[in-house]
């Protein structure tokens, strides 16, 4: 059996970041990817926040093929027949180094893979890893294309369904309550059209989140990101809610209906839809994290559950990059001791605990529970829309006092429930 120092399964952000750091240390590392190229199987919404990860992959960000830096943050609450939007623009977000960028993964991951290869990592594409080889409970390699490959450490970076972690006996298939499904269309628009339409100058970008009636009371929401010459438009819906909420609706019809909203139609008019993608997203937060290490194995990125709903942002890519880098650092430490047992590799968990990764997961550990409240997806957007509609309406008769209009829209019972939700919201 051919043997490497490290085998990484999956050329996504976690795997490529780990490979880059290991290769820079002169460690013999091979990345095995089932797609035709890195990124071929990967999907994001998506936006990448660079600040948290700049230090983990230093010196590479200047050349990264990112799309637009986000200067405009929008939130839209939707009701069946109206919507309330907030648009926040900041000069600060238009200053270098930019803090967040829209991104397309097929481009970005290929580029990151090239950096890892340049550093000395070996990349094998078009190969699915079919099994994990264990010896006396310790992971010692993988099987791909009928061939056995050995390694001191295998790093499972094979995404949200991690078959590697499953075959290694670390996890069992996930439960619907801990996952959402994301659907996305990429719609091309000429640069100038896009910039005029969204009120953007140069490489500025907009990130818009939608919540409310578009998910028909289900956990989730919509998103729109402007890329250089395309728009990423999609939505995320909790899988448990899709199964349990009646009447049932086919998730792709929710996206169609969202696209037909008058808020969206003019934004994508005349655009050329060029791709339709979908992916499961871990949404379990702290409680949804998998075991992170075992004898001869580490788990990073989505495979470990590193995706976090922080209320107005859902983040995964920064955690993937940072966890990949910290997995590499743990391996470097294990090599110094020439011991790849779980107890030595457990320093990976420690590195994560000391970093923004586990700190964010602990800070936002109550978010999944707080957001699991259908009032956020139904009542509140409708309350806000109806209130504003009444306030802005001028009828033939005399106009009611503003305070009376608010009172009419908000019963005592609703105020109490709102107070309770607000208290819950303070936890996040």
């Amino acid at each position, binding site marked *: 059996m051919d043997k490497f120092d490290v085998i990484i399964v999956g050329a996504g952000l976690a795997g490529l970041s780990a490979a880059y750091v290991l290769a820079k240390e002169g460690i013999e590392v091979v990345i095995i990817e089932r797609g035709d190229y890195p990124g071929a199987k990967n*999907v994001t919404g998506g936006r990448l926040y660079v600040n948290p990860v700049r230090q983990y992959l230093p010196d590479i960000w200047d050349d990264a093929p990112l799309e637009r830096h986000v200067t405009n943050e929008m939130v839209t609450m939707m009701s069946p027949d109206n919507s309330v939007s907030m648009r926040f623009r900041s000069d600060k977000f238009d200053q270098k180094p930019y803090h967040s960028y829209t991104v397309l993964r*097929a481009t970005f991951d290929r580029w990151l893979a090239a950096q890892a290869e340049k550093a000395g990592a070996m990349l094998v594409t078009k190969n*699915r890893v079919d099994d994990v080889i264990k010896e006396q409970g310790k992971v010692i390699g993988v099987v791909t294309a009928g061939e056995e490959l050995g390694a001191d450490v295998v790093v499972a970076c094979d995404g949200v369904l991690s078959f590697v972690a499953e075959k290694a006996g670390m996890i069992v298939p996930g439960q619907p309550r801990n*996952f959402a499904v994301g659907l996305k269309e990429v719609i091309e628009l000429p640069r100038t059209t896009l910039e005029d339409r969204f009120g953007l100058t140069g490489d500025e970008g907009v990130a818009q989140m939608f919540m409310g009636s578009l998910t028909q009371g289900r956990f989730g929401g919509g998103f729109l990101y402007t890329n250089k010459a395309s728009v990423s438009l999609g939505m995320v819906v909790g899988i448990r809610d899709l199964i349990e909420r009646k009447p049932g609706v086919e998730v792709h019809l929710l996206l169609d209906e969202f696209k037909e909203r008058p808020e969206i139609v003019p934004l994508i008019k005349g655009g050329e839809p*060029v791709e*339709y993608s979908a992916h499961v997203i871990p949404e379990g937060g702290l409680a949804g994290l998998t075991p992170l290490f075992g004898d001869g194995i580490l788990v990073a990125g989505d495979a470990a559950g590193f995706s976090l709903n922080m209320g107005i942002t859902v983040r995964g890519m920064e955690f993937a990059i940072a966890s990949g880098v910290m997995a590499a650092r743990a391996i470097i430490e294990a090599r110094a001791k020439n011991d790849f047992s779980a107890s030595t590799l457990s320093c990976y968990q420690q590195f994560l605990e000391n970093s923004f990764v586990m700190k964010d997961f602990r800070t936002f550990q109550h978010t999944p529970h707080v957001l699991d409240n259908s009032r956020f997806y139904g009542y509140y957007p409708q309350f806000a829309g109806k209130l504003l509609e009444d306030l802005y309406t001028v009828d033939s008769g005399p106009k009611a006092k503003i305070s009376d209009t608010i009172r009419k829209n908000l019963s005592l019972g609703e105020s109490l429930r709102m107070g309770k939700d607000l208290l819950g919201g303070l936890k996040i």
Partner: protein
Amino acid sequence: MSERRSMKAKLGGNVFKPDRERHINIKPGFEKDARLKAALFVCPAGLYSLNEEDEVVLDIDGCLECGTCRIACGTEVLDWNYPNGEAGVQFRFG
């Protein structure tokens, strides 16, 4: 309102490479299982449907490999794997 594109047209914009076998199969005897009904709603490509015998059937062409049906229905009713290397969807944007 612009005209709604069919799922076929949506998926037609993607690059798919054929596989030599189906990578997801409904386990024999589970075609009418209640757990499998979830697939009718959760599949972003709408690949699951009911036949005239009220059995759930899966048309694998156009699978986005998202994993939603595996999470929603479970591995007791679905035999679920990724396509072989060099097969399946190849996202150009992602």
